[in-house]
């Protein structure tokens, strides 16, 4: 399944300062759908090169990180159990506090 992943608010620093990643991620078995839970595990093992605790806590994103699927907060579309579709755009963004 082809997905566009974007990292912002400093999370790009965890994946070699690359903000936009075009990726292909396969579901666990052929008939199953890919969920956000699967994607998080894939991102953690395949993209995050340092300080994984700055991205995840337990099996979800750490506090202060927003997950947006096709410009919509994942909390509005099922959160971690949400099923992804071909060509979805998933944004991981850390909240900023500076000024």
């Amino acid at each position: 399944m082809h997905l566009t992943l974007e990292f912002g608010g400093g999370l790009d620093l965890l994946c070699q300062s690359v903000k936009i990643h075009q990726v292909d991620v396969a579901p666990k078995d052929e008939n199953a759908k890919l969920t956000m839970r699967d994607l998080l595990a894939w991102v953690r093992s395949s993209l995050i090169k340092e300080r994984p605790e700055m991205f995840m806590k337990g099996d979800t994103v750490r506090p202060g990180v927003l997950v947006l699927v096709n410009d919509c907060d994942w909390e509005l579309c099922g959160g971690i159990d949400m099923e992804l579709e071909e060509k979805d755009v998933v944004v991981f963004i850390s909240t900023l506090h500076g000024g």
Partner: protein
Amino acid sequence: HNTFYNGLTPGMIYRYSRHLLLPDFGVEGQKNLSMSSILVVGAGGLGSPVVLYLASCGVGCLGIVDSDVVELNNLHRQIVHPEAYVGQAKVKSAAATCRAINSSINIVEHNEALQASNALDIINKYDVVVDATDNLPSRYMISDCCVLLDKPLISGAALGLEGQLTVYHHKGGPCYRCLFPIPPPAAACQRCSDSGVLGVVPGVIGCFQALEAIKIASCIGESLSGKLLILDALSSRVRIVKLRGRSLHCVSCGENATLSQQNFRTFDYEGFTQSPMSDK
């Protein structure tokens, strides 16, 4: 002031004529603005364009709260402060610049740090609050205070080459704690003094904050409540996303909220976030 036409003086009609011509704003919008009071928390990178545009547009009362003094290494982004004010209070400097561009509005200087102990008294005097601070505990504190006093909050942030902006606790939308019930780890809290910021990035975000404050104070248009604006300055991309709604379980604005004015005053926001209330 004597008021003549529809609550506006002849001086106001001349000064704000380009606003009065707007069908979507007009006399009604200007009158609402002139009767409103807006508090800007922070006279730094975000606060600079916010106070300049709120002063120039004719808000009735503009409050500015900050305890910092102007430093030369602020001036690459804090356009409200002239070099002559280096070493003096930011609030004094910002108020002087604002008075010079619009002597007809009321500008109130709060030359002190906004803290849980004084926030209720200060914020209570205003209709709309702009969070232009630079640290995490202040963001929780200001959001909680706005929920307690039922004030709309326009929250902006900038760091490096990125910016974010939303409106909290407005027309049934979420508050800061609805989005972030648990604070991030302290190591995730980058600060402008450590990580840097391109000066014009808080400029863009601050102008958007002023726009949202003006729309809410003048009762026009549709605000960014429930939406987050994300700016990536390096590639000039702007994304506006839909956020979750108000949480029924929110300790601040939820159905069984535990937040009260009494426990707010003594809540330890620095301990809660493991982060200091200043970017020093």
